[in-house]
């Protein structure tokens, strides 16, 4: 099969090996950007190639835009990371030796995520997610400061447990499918599972889902499985924070949703919607409160990622065309906006030389452009119009209030709490008497503002095919 799919997987894989050999960081960064760009091209090409469907791989409405999104964010982040890492080298926070691993791992992660997205085989899906996780573990620890290692360890241990549980869930899925579909690969092919879902044993399927929920939920960062997430975001290099929040969480959620579809297709399984709603609301409220006492700006936005993952989980738990649509839209926008925010935050932390919120003041005076970027990002992530997240929250709140008023009230309360915290911190950072250096900033604003522009566009106008994809998937999600 010489479809774009091949390149989608082959390019990053090849780049991983190649980058492993290259010591010089400029070339490495350049190659990184090129490879990501090529991957993006391949991903876009998927739109025009005809849909693939084998026991191993599949391209359908659900993953096609996620693949493109992933490739896109990967590309922009690689651009951002080129300038960012350059600065880190100058101030000697990183050494070229580790940079070699950095770029290689970056591509490895991209490859793994693409694999996870396009794989039709639930086992392969699992492999993809796990490889992506492990490669990010490495990158989180790359600064080798004690707290970075601490974060990496936390991530590693919790991640591994998650891995194990998710794998057990996968085994259960196979066990439940094998009698119906027969042994071997077909019994792990997702679309076949979906087709024969009704015949499965409900009990075992529910059990499987519980393990998958906990396993992948750890990756999604749902409370109470979230512990690794804030530290990993705060201590790793910012580009990694961007892809973690922007992509990896999405991929994990995507994996979970694939299985949610299986259960949705089955009439009498456990009501997983309720469980997801509960987890979502817990994450939302919890992170909303956690936002208030944050002192580290990257950790702040890490918690906001937990919050938004909670919102999405709530939406998918709610189900129904509107809520699911909202959830899917929210996924897309969150990865765009949150990565944009991390771009801004990365540069801010560099120009101010600190991540402590209390030491960053009056940014709108010293660095207006960065300030505007951050402000727009926070406005967008807080779900204010005219950015797209308002659309998704609008649909979610209205539709769920019409169906489950009390739950919707909890949701609204959580949104408000989190909003209050975010705006409070943003005002602290942007306004007031400026402090810290006002020096010029060697930053690449393009990724930041491109992301924001896309988020803005989504708020005002969604392209037709995208809407159709969302609706189709929303229907499947039940």
């Amino acid at each position, binding site marked *: 099969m010489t479809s774009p799919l091949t390149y989608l997987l082959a390019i990053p894989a090849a780049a991983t090996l190649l980058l492993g050999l290259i010591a010089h960081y400029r070339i490495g960064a350049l190659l990184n950007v090129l490879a990501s760009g090529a991957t993006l091209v391949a991903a876009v090409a998927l739109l025009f190639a005809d849909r693939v469907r084998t026991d191993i791989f599949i391209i359908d409405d659900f993953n096609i835009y996620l693949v493109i999104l992933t490739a896109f964010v990967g590309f922009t982040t690689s651009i951002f990371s080129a300038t960012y890492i350059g600065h880190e080298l100058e101030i000697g926070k990183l050494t070229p030796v580790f940079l070699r691993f950095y770029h290689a791992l970056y591509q490895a992660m991209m490859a793994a995520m693409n694999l996870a997205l396009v794989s039709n085989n639930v086992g392969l899906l699992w492999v993809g997610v796990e490889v992506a996780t492990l490669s990010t573990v490495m990158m989180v620890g790359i600064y080798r400061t004690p707290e970075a290692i601490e974060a990496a360890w936390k991530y590693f241990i919790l991640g591994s447990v998650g891995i194990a549980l998710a794998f057990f869930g996968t085994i259960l899925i196979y066990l439940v499918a094998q009698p119906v579909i027969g042994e071997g690969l077909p019994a792990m092919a997702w679309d076949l599972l979906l087709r024969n879902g009704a015949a499965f044993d409900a009990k075992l399927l529910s059990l499987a889902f519980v393990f998958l*929920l*906990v396993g992948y939920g750890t990756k999604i960062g749902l409370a109470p499985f979230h512990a690794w997430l804030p530290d990993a975001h705060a201590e790793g290099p910012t580009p990694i924070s961007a892809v973690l929040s922007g992509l990896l969480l999405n991929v994990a959620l995507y994996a979970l949703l694939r299985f949610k579809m299986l259960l949705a297709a089955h009439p009498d399984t456990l009501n997983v919607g309720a469980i997801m709603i509960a987890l979502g609301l817990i994450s939302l409220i919890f992170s909303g409160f956690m936002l208030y*006492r944050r002192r580290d700006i990257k950790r702040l936005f890490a918690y906001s990622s937990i919050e938004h993952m909670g919102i999405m989980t709530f939406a998918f738990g709610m189900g129904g065309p509107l809520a699911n649509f909202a959830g899917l839209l929210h996924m897309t926008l969150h990865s765009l906006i949150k990565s944009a925010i991390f771009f801004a935050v990365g540069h801010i932390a560099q120009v101010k030389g600190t991540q402590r919120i209390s030491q960053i003041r009056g940014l709108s005076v010293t660095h207006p452009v960065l300030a505007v970027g951050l402000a727009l990002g926070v406005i967008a992530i*807080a779900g204010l119009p005219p950015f797209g997240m308002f659309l998704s929250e609008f649909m979610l709140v*209205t*539709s769920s209030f019409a169906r489950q008023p009390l739950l919707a009230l909890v949701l*609204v309360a959580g949104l*408000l709490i989190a909003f209050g915290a975010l705006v409070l911190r943003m005002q602290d950072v942007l306004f007031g008497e400026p402090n810290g250096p006002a020096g010029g900033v060697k930053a690449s604003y393009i990724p930041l503002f491109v992301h924001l522009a896309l988020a803005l566009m989504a708020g005002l106008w969604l392209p037709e095919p995208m809407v159709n994809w969302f609706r189709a998937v929303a229907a499947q999600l039940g």
Partner: protein
Amino acid sequence: MPLRIGLACVVAYLVAAVLAVVIGRRRAAPAVVYGAIVAISAAGLGSAFFALVSGDLNTRLALPLGLPLTGGALRIDALSAFFLLVVNLGGLAAGVYGIGYGRHERSPLRVLPYIPAYLAGMNFVLMADDAFTFLVAWEFMSLASWILVLADHRREENARAAYIYIVMASAGTLCLLLAFGLLAGPHGGYAFTAMREAAQPPLIAGLVFLLALVGAGSKAGLVPLHIWLPLAHPAAPSHVSALMSGVMTKVAIYGFIRIVFDLVNEPASWMSLIVIAFGGVTAVLGVLYALLQQDIKRLLAYSTVENVGIIFVGLGLAMAFRAHDMAVPAALAMTAALLHVLNHSFFKSLLFFGAGAVVHASGERDMERLGGLIRRMPHTAIVFLIGCAAISALPPLNGFVSEWMTFQAILVGPQLPHWGLKLIVPTVGALLALAAAFAAACFVKLFGTVFLGRARTAAARNAHDVDRFSLAAMYALAALCFLSGVVPGPLIDMLAPVAHALVRARMPEQSGIAWLSIVPIAASRSSYNGLIILSFLICSGVLTATVIHRFATRATRRSAIWDCGYPDPSLVTQYSGSSFVMPIRRVFGAALFDIRETVEMPPPGSAKPARFSLKVFDPAWRFAYGPGTRAIWTAAGKLNRLQFLTIRRYLMLVFAALIVLLIVVAAWR
């Protein structure tokens, strides 16, 4: 056609905003931007007015933007046309004022781009015909004004004000969101047309009403949701304060009317009861708070709260009459409310402009440090006096007309066949009378302390009148106050289609009545003629003056103050604003506020000065908002411990969750 013009205006505003970003740093920028605002809002004003009088309304327009699949819907009906009129009038005035005032802006990039954006948002709210477009515009408006509040961001209290403002605003938006969610139903009929057709069961209608009351009320400044208003409105530059107080609160009221009278339109007695009660309380408390302020702009902001209360009383009465199918009184009450909307936008903008002029001239917002400005800034003094008289509901100015009409509606109240309403209507009438008296006291205090007496500081002594653009804007508004006070008939007729669209009835045609007087219901019942009153006043006043000057004496001698023979030259012995309100504070305030008065009287013989200090707190903080914020903060503190667990404990969390879920599965059959 008006719809297209309106849309063009919105686009033009946005373009102006972008332009402002581009040229912001140039010296000519303010003139250009404000000029653009003047032009655009003049166009919008014209089209809205034309639409209202010619009845070229209810045109629809579907935008490809907005909600997926359905897109955004725009529509201008009589209601939105009227409010477009209000908004663009305010924009026009603010623009003219800004041409002069904006020159002194320290950091124009923090102001210039956002005023057009703000106006665009407000215009768009009024044209929206589906929930999503409405809320987008609504929140956009809040955002723009939030940044404007932060224009002078280095002052700590401004940042705080902006923060409280934006949080309250989005809380309100969420309430509206929920209301629309109920109206739209689970299948998401977000278009207003669909909502109108869907008949709501009483429970839903009631819920929607409450949510709308909270959502729109928090933006309009209904007590006790008003706390952000007196903080945020003064913080912005004065012409923006004028827009916020004079215009944005009206947009909020529009939102309330739109939902309650148009989308739901099944008013029940209990709803109207709530609205009337809240309106009355808001009116009295608002003006009482205003009385106790020392900061000019904050005083004005609080008086906005009062006027919002009066408007809500009118709306509540309209709901009550509508609920009992008393169409004509309903029309009267509604017209009164709408007229007050218009009038308040006149004199509140005027007053804020005046305050801006004073603040700019003297650099002081604390009225206790001003005084005697009537001699330094005669023009500002005249227009400000007119504004004060108008807002104190004194004939023959416009404030009186709308309040008089509200009273007329109240006097019909007893005919309502509903116990609660029967009893509350006279009570609220008394409350409104009280509010009117307080308003008079409040503005006597304001004008007396700021413009009369002797200058208390050098700043006040060296003040000077403002530039001619600002003065032009203020004079124009003053003229409007006069005009709509003396010949309100045409305005009332102009409002007829609006009232008819909302309550299926209109006030009697005013234009036919002799001597241009106005008749709310029937000539035998009550009537008022500002024109004749005014001419009588002028005639008799001028007559007596001339007679005396002619036949008696016109000799005048200037000398020192007499003051009962014990004149005290020092400036501090004049009555200050806070001493002016002391009796009222003692009589009314003590129960309603937590007021801290401390007197330090040094022992006889010691040279220390005696000190008197007075602190007034808004009890809403003490009892509602303070505890709430503290609760959140403590909760955050307690949860925060979860940030510092060891990995093992985190694993325990995971394990526990897993076990719980497994037990759920095991238990589930």
